[in-house]
């Protein structure tokens, strides 16, 4: 059994957190933006169109939701970095 007591004094990291204030996101850095999700959404949308002829309401609903989620994620990503259009190297 440990007899020592962990220090309770305020750490420099605590002070930094107070100074920086609340963070808007848990994603601290994202050096490379991913391929625009709208591209992926387009692919999913095409798949959805292919499915529309199928008599399967549940599947159509699920695909529609997936497309919607992708579009929302895409919008959020580009709101965060409105000029981001491509990957780079370096």
């Amino acid at each position, binding site marked *: 059994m440990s007899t020592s007591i962990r220090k309770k004094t305020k750490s420099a990291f605590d002070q930094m957190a107070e100074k920086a204030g609340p*963070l808007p996101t848990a994603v*601290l*850095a994202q*050096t490379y933006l991913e391929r625009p999700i709208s591209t992926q959404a387009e692919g999913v949308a095409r798949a959805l169109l292919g499915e529309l002829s199928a008599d399967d309401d549940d599947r159509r609903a699920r695909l529609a939701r997936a497309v919607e989620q992708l579009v929302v994620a895409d919008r*959020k990503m580009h709101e965060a970095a409105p000029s981001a259009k491509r990957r780079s190297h370096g």
Partner: protein
Amino acid sequence: MPRDTPYGYGDQLYRVEEASTDIGREADVWVRPESDVHSWSWAKKVHRSREAWVLMEDSQGPVALWTSEKGLITLVEGQFYRLDHIELRPDRRGSGLGFLVLALIACRALELNAIGVVLRCIPALRAFYETAGGEARTPKGWNVPYPGMLAFTFPEAVLRSLKATADEHLDQEEDQERV
């Protein structure tokens, strides 16, 4: 960056380890607020990056991950550690844990003899990185293809300062108990 000695922060102990794709899968199902911009799979990031690290909280599993797809990159000023993706588990937001993770990244960069760390982030995180000692600038030779993103550079002196603060958190209790 010690792998065996844990870091004590608050009432918890943390260990830094190389991340596996299984750890990445755990992070992929973290519950995130809708406002978070997160569009990648950690499992894939871990798989394809030169290096990926995780901060494990004793009995609580992964609480932060970071990757560097290339490790060191050579720029005009010298070799920099390129930080690509980093995320703190959303329910750990608001403490100084993010700064501890940043300090561990500084430790890793120094371990690789980098003269600095470079990264990009959304502008809303400016205060976080400036508070940690980062400079909102792009080192010469580094492309910035995303004008909406903010580039940050951490010079070597800042890395050493962050490492010194992290070292203060090294928990020696376990070692003492083993003696």
